[in-house]
């Protein structure tokens, strides 16, 4: 009893701070979502589910939902696949292994504003690094191509930038999981005459399967809710082709000043995230 109370006493600061800084704002968002509120306006009017209804009936909402789903699916799975291949390759490196691991990891810690800024510049038509390389190779049309400002290619280009930053994260995590596989396991498989592909599917994959599932969930949450990278890279454009839901939330709240609608969209985005959170919690409890 006393034990429990002492422990709880030590938890109090964290519980208090998390309640004030995270839970109350979250509840406020839920509360605001039932009101019509203008930024800078006075008073709020209770409107029930009107904000939700108007979102669901707006093409902008469905468009952003579609873009967000594309953005998530085309980010998460390719990044997982590529990251796993690189992690397996890195695992076979013997010389300068830690150095190489650090070099591969580096993009993950580069500030997101710099990532966006740097890639915009690298991809600038005519003068950027990609254009210069293309021009040297005689590919004039590629050198002039506006990767980030053409509606056809903006999302695809953003996916490449997202992969540049995200793949290193996958590599490091999968690489860590690979370290739990003993050499005996591979030897046994090699003796049994298994080729590298079979080795991967029958020896490696079972060991890292759990890690891959967790990473898929984590990366989904990171990508689904990240405002900054897309805002700085394309700001949703051109022609809304990269306007993912976080950008729409920001636009509704701080450009159209419609805080109620922004909150309602936030609540809807949270539902998706909650599924991920619930999954993570079950996973964690299951592992214990």
């Amino acid at each position, binding site marked *: 009893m006393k034990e429990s109370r002492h422990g709880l006493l030590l938890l109090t*600061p964290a519980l208090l701070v998390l309640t004030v800084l995270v839970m109350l704002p979250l509840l406020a968002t839920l509360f605001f979502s039932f009101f019509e509120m203008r930024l800078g306006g006075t008073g709020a009017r209770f409107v029930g589910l009107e904000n939700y209804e108007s979102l669901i009936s707006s093409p902008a909402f469905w468009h952003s939902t579609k873009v967000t789903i594309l953005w998530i699916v085309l980010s998460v799975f390719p990044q997982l696949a590529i990251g796993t291949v690189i992690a397996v390759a890195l695992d076979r490196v013997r010389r300068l292994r830690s150095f190489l691991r650090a070099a591969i*990891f580096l993009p993950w810690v580069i500030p997101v*504003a710099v990532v966006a800024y740097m890639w915009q510049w690298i991809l600038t038509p005519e003068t950027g690094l990609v254009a210069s390389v293309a021009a040297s190779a005689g590919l004039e049309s590629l050198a002039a191509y506006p990767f980030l400002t053409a509606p056809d290619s903006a999302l695809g280009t953003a996916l490449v930038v997202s992969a540049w930053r995200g793949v290193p994260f996958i590599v490091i995590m999968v690489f860590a999981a690979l370290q739990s596989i003993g050499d005996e396991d591979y030897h046994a498989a090699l003796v049994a005459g298994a080729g590298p592909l079979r080795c991967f599917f029958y020896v490696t994959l079972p060991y890292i399967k759990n890690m891959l599932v967790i990473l898929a969930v984590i990366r989904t949450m990171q990508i689904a809710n990240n405002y900054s990278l897309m805002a700085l890279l394309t700001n949703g454009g051109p022609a809304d082709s990269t306007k993912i839901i976080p950008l729409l939330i920001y636009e509704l709240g701080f450009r159209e000043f419609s805080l109620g609608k922004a909150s309602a969209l936030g609540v809807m985005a949270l539902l998706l995230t909650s599924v991920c959170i619930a999954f993570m919690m079950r996973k964690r409890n299951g592992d214990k």
Partner: protein
Amino acid sequence: MGTNSRFSLSVALAWVVGVALFIPILWMMMTAIRPEHELYQIPLKLLPGALDWSNLETAWTEKSFGQYFYNSTLNSTLSVMFSMPIGIITGYAFSRFEIRHSKYYRAYVLFAYMVPIIILVVPFYLVAVQLNLYNTRLGHVLGLSTYAIPFATWVMIGYFEQIPREVEHSAAVDGASRMKTLIYILIPMARTGIIATALLTFILAWDDYIFALILLDSEHLRTLPLAIGYLSADYELTDGLMMAMGTITTLPILFLFVFFQKYFVGGMTSGAVKG
């Protein structure tokens, strides 16, 4: 040997990827210190023919990046100082006390850790305005803390759980109080974890763009990422100057990364995954 050649193919792939990922960062930094006339020369040269520090100087003084650097450093440091004590005490409590319903409190921390920032932004902005915290350093530090604190707490819980309990049993036999055990035995033992968590929290805070964007207005309070966000709309900047700004924003993180290398990977794989 077939297997051997495949293995070296893997090694080659790993190196190619490592170099390819690094080139954009290196290119940015080289452009920052390259003389203007070398910028668009064909064929491309990775290393500059001469060093030119003028872009870095102009960014630092004329373009106020010195001030922004100070703001980023101070705000990130403050949010680490808010987060770490809470993280340490909470990690200690969860791993060393039999708390009733501990499972639910843990879930609460995990939930807070995973709530997307974009959802907190509207109410946070409104409250900040009400409490006169809008456009103040404290307001921004509190904004950073909405994710720095759950992050540090969650990672510290993981670290404290890794420390075997036998340690304190022997300390208890020696008659040491719990507080003494925490301060003189557990914290030193968790040192690696504490350093790793503090570093990753710092980097997380340094990376912040959204809270700076909604909470800071005055130029003298701007952080580096916010300044970069505003500048990307400024077409009068030369490429060299732009990349000097990017370099100034990246170098401190690069520095921490290189000098504290071993802490990073340990921290990452202990549940440090907010991004």
